[in-house]
């Protein structure tokens, strides 16, 4: 579905089987995203319709605005603002037609294999890696209340402060009690055996659904040690429709600017002085673009430019103008360096996944891991892992070698691109270690479902085409090598020479020039000659034929 142009009035789209209707949404202006979906279901008298909606943030073109749907949201890169700019409040869908399969028996057999593997993986968590990396699905934040790892390893405030001794018995008990009290039920997405999400009902405010880490992003950015606040403010943020990664950091950035005297008492006139009240106040200003909220609504990068007076120094946790996870680490990880720099979605969780984040502590642990590592596209990845050591000659940042890093990144991003093309959740595929979907069974699954002849090489070719198309789109928008940087203070210890080599090798592997622009030759090999023509006409690619 592609939306061109804009609607003069606020509308929503109603798709019922083959019928598509644009309906007035003026009565939904200013309504919450979850609230809107519910109101649409009621007015259509279609309790089973699904609706994706924006809240006030999208309507007001806040750069961190999300599109919310049920327990999920399309949060990153300000896509809710695009919907708001087009005047589309929501898209509601109900379909009762069949989904036909080309080779049913084969398909169901493959589904059963996947299901059996999921059950196996749920019973056999990956050993010798941290808890959050052991299982399948989205990080199981709704199930677990133990947040020692997040609270002590992720930064508090404006991605600044690490609190290594934060977690203790008292907090553990209190947070567990809070989570169990507000969590009404763990829930699944359609036809999924995982239970990544939950219904959250905090007394006094309307019910919503949540998954993953947003219960803590606001609380940690605000320096609030009460999980109840996390669930409460996330409810408001969900109704407003804002990204729970970026938004808390924008607010923490504002607080820092105030403390530094760059923002003034006047900017904060009427703002409560406590951490909780201040965050609610800032959130309300941002989504309404009121006062200082108008600049902040553009995210830390643009807000800093507007505010000036040295505010740029405080917008320190961005890639490509987008706020990132609040992580600050010691020594450069070359694999992660490449992924942070080149990931087209400017978000580490949407490119990482298949390869362990760090080497195993002993040879035995490594051997145990590779023993049933069926997902590797090539046996060489097992060697890369087994030879990788925590310290010494074969350790980071020079091992895995530059070429190995490129291979590893290519595999990881390939799986994300395939998932995105198929509409399969990354939680059962590209995101966790040892997932049930991988490069070896995907071609058979696609073929049995659709009847398209497909093998591994064919699927890889589709990935390469997608990868280059997306790169070409961003190149047209001005993306160049200078933009491919991790957040400047992500690692304390950097290796500029190695980093240049990594980027050079990655570009070369992809068939791009040293600015990260696909070459005519590599585009033609992918049957994308017309993209080369386009880039040439725009003066982005040199006319090599003279």
């Amino acid at each position, binding site marked *: 579905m592609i939306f061109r142009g804009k609607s003069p009035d606020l509308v929503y789209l109603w798709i019922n089987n083959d019928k598509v209707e644009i309906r007035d949404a003026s009565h939904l202006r200013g309504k919450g995203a979850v609230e809107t979906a519910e109101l649409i279901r009621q007015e259509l008298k279609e*309790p089973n319709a699904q609706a994706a909606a924006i809240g006030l943030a999208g309507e007001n073109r806040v750069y961190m605005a999300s599109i919310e749907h*049920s327990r999920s949201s399309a949060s990153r890169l300000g896509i809710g603002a695009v919907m708001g700019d087009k005047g589309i409040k929501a898209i509601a869908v109900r379909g*009762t037609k*069949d*989904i*036909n399969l080309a080779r049913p*028996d084969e398909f169901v057999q493959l589904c059963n294999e996947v299901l059996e593997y999921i059950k196996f993986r749920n019973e056999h968590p990956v050993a010798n890696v941290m808890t959050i990396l052991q299982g399948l699905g989205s990080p199981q934040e709704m199930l677990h209340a133990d947040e020692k790892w997040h609270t002590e390893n992720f930064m508090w405030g404006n991605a600044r402060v690490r609190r290594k001794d934060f977690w203790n018995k008292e907090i553990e008990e209190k947070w567990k009690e809070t989570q169990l009290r507000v969590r009404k039920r763990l829930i*699944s997405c*359609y036809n999924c*055996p995982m239970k990544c999400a939950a219904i959250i009902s905090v007394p006094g405010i309307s019910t919503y659904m949540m998954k993953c880490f947003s219960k803590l992003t606001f609380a940690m950015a605000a320096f609030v040690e009460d999980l109840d606040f996390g669930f409460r403010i996330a409810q408001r943020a969900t109704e407003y429709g804002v990204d729970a990664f970026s938004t808390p950091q924008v607010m923490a950035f504002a607080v820092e600017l105030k403390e530094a005297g760059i923002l003034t008492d006047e900017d904060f006139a009427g703002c409560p002085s406590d951490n909780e009240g201040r965050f609610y106040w800032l959130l309300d200003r941002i989504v309404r673009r009121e006062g200082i909220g108008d600049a902040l609504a553009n995210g830390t990068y643009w807000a800093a430019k507007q505010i000036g007076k040295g505010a740029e120094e405080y917008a320190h946790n961005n890639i490509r103008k987008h706020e990132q996870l609040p992580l600050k680490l010691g020594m450069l990880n070359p694999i992660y360096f490449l992924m942070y720099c080149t990931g087209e979605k400017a978000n580490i969780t949407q490119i990482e996944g298949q390869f362990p984040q760090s080497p195993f502590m002993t040879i035995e642990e490594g051997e145990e891991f590779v023993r049933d590592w069926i997902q590797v596209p090539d046996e060489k990845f097992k060697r890369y892992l087994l030879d990788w050591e925590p310290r010494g000659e074969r350790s980071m940042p020079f091992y895995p070698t530059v070429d190995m890093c490129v291979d590893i990144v290519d595999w990881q991003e390939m799986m994300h691109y395939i998932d995105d093309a198929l509409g399969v959740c990354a939680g059962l595929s590209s995101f966790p270690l040892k997932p049930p979907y991988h490069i070896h069974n995907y071609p058979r699954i696609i073929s049995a479902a659709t009847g398209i002849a497909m093998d591994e090489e064919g699927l890889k070719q589709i990935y390469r085409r997608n990868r280059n198309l997306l790169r070409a789109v961003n190149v047209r928008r001005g993306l160049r090598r200078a933009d491919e940087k991790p957040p400047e203070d992500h690692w304390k210890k950097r290796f500029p020479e190695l980093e240049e080599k990594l980027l050079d090798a990655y570009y070369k592997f992809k068939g791009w020039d040293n600015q990260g622009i696909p070459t005519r030759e590599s585009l033609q090999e992918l049957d994308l000659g017309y993209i080369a023509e386009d880039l040439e006409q725009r003066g982005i690619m040199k006319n090599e034929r003279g």
Partner: protein
Amino acid sequence: MSEVKKIVKTIKIDLDKCNGCRACELICSAFHAKPKYSSNNPARSRIQVIHDPLRDIYLPVYAGEYAQAECMGRDKYVIDGKEYDECDFCRASCPSRDVFKEPDSGLPLKCDMCEDDPPQEKPLCVQWCLNEALTYEEREEEVEEEVKLEDIEIGLEAMVDKYGLQKIIDAVARMSMKG
């Protein structure tokens, strides 16, 4: 009348364990597709998870008998503080709602416990429910052997109940004389 043994097939539904994944709906519709598994469409499923996440309602219901007309009253049940429509629990394919009807023809759907050839060990919905919200139980019951009446006898019995046997005999006699 003599006693006979009868196998009663039961699916136990635990609402607290349902996570709303609706794999039961998916597999039901796929299993009953022709050819088998050739399509999936929860609108064709003979089990429906009545769900309303914001009210924390997850209620798997099976398709039962066809009902020509809807009920006159609609009661509400409040269970553990949650309000359910009486209809939520009802198995009927009925004019008051869209569930348990083939989406294109409107013909009623009815759960057949996957009594298929070859027979399934358990209904497919139970096999695919990983949360054990649906569990299958068979139990034996002693029931009185029923003497099955022909359709005509059923009709006559109703007439006898209403008018008395003598009136019916007289009426039949008159009709046969006119013959």
